[in-house]
């Protein structure tokens, strides 16, 4: 197993509160790995540290052996590790297509000045951005809403838009923040298929943070479980379902929440 992303002894402390304590695990190339845990387990914090939106207190995150923690978010994105957000984080007054076009700017070959003067490279860029946007939106089944303003979209489409924006940057690793939250069964299943096809057809390694247990069990190759900031388990979905520590962590909520 070649580790694409290595989380090494990562710890985050906010004053006296430890959000993440000494967490280590690897993400292999082309796998779908989910991080789960009860509320307040430190999933989001871990996510933010991987994408350098918050610095680590100690420990580091490596991407292809290179440290990507404690940098700037845009630097990490440029290396190919891109996160998405929950549905409220969008470009509200851009259309779906415009959002996807602007997200491709990392692929631009012409300089900002080149764009200002309308150089040949810049015009080629603009053309290829448009083509790729159309292709991507078709792949995601969003071509019919390409010209809708993002602020007019229903929730389910907003999540897909977030993924479209993330994918437009041509990432190697996509970090999805609760992609199934607030979705009904059908929507969730469609999203599961979508995330799978992102991995299968585009070769993008996916790491996601999620609450929806049935979806996580269905989609993940491996699962990492956090509780009170500590990693308590790691393994395949069936291993996790039978792990006593995990069952204990979720006790108090109904049993079927971790199972099928």
């Amino acid at each position: 197993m070649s580790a694409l992303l290595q989380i090494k002894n990562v710890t985050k402390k906010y004053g006296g509160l430890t959000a993440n304590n000494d967490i280590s695990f690897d993400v292999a190339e082309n796998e779908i790995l989910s991080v789960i845990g009860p509320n307040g387990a430190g999933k989001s914090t871990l996510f933010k540290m991987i994408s350098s939106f918050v610095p680590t207190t100690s420990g580091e995150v490596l991407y292809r052996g290179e440290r990507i923690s404690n940098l700037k978010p845009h630097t990490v994105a440029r290396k190919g590790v891109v996160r998405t957000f929950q549905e409220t984080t969008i470009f509200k007054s851009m259309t779906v297509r415009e959002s996807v076009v602007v997200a491709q700017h990392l692929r631009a070959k012409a300089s900002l000045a080149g764009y200002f003067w309308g150089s040949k490279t810049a015009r080629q860029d603009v053309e290829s951005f448009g083509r790729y946007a159309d292709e991507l939106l078709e792949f995601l089944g969003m071509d019919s809403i390409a010209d809708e303003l993002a602020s007019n979209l229903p929730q389910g489409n907003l999540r897909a838009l977030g993924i479209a924006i993330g994918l437009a940057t041509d990432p190697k690793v996509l970090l999805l923040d609760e992609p199934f939250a607030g979705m009904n069964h059908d929507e969730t299943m469609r999203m599961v298929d979508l995330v799978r096809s992102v991995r299968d057809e585009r070769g993008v390694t996916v790491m996601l943070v999620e609450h929806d247990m049935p979806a996580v069990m269905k989609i993940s190759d491996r699962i990492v479980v956090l509780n009170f900031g500590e990693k308590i388990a790691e393994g395949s979905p069936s291993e996790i379902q039978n792990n006593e520590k995990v069952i204990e962590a979720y006790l108090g909520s109904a049993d079927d929440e971790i199972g099928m």
Partner: protein
Amino acid sequence: MNFSAKQILGVAVFLLVIFVGVPMFIAATGRWDFYFTLTSVALLAIASAGVWLTFYIGRINIGQGAFALVGAYVSAILVVKAGWSFWISLPAAGLFAALVAVLLGLPILRLRGVYFAMITLVLTQVATLTALALPITNGAKGITNIPLPSGVSLFGLTLIPDFGQLENTRMAFYFTACILMIITYAALYRLVNSRLGHLCRSMQQNEELASSIGVNITYIRILIFAISSFFGGIGGAMFGSISQSVYPATFVVKDSVDFMLNCFLGGLGYVFGPMLGTLLIYFGWDLLFEFGKYQLLIYSTILIVVIRFLPDGLLSIRFGKGEKK
């Protein structure tokens, strides 16, 4: 760059009005003072364009007066003390203002919303006080008797005539200011509709998401603030040259607030909003003069009503919501 016939016609009419219509009107009516008024409008519109640009990255900038003052002083000092030609001091003034903006912007552009606005509000006052304190700016006496712009010729061909030799300096300044204004707005239009503009829009709408797609938001913020201040410096330098003097009070806090209001009034969604806003605010204030002591009251009431009922500016009546000219 595809322009519709309507847009081309609009620009053509606009150019015709300012370069042919206005001079003819003034010649016919004999109101030569209009030249000075309209020149001021054009120059203030240049500075307002800068403020508009900082709005475009989601920052409320009430500090353009500071950069206009910096530009005015730099140009005046270069012309009077170093003997430079005004035409070289003009870009130098813009560049110096941009440099100051980079140095100031590094710490203050991290702030958002009202915090950034508060800091910039103070900037103009700081610039005024600095001008009072420094020896090179000549304190409260300011720099006076700035010579009029000299001529520029290349291979014996006169590109720009010597303003001191001209019969009609006012008209020459009017044309210069209008040309500068047109260049400024053409550049602004191009910038907003190129990749940099799209990145600015992404930042204005959501900085976190913008940085997640790899936009170096710090760099773009600084770059935009520098361009914005460049416009402020150019406007200020030209203003100093026309009035042939610069004082610490040439640009005060009220001017900074006006630059911001020009943008609000014209419309933040439209590149040409600040131009219209400047014209209306400048003339509106003068027209209300006959109301005497109620002038400020009526002026403020109108502004509040406009901002309350037309949050997207006056141009939103004409173009509808979200559409861009």
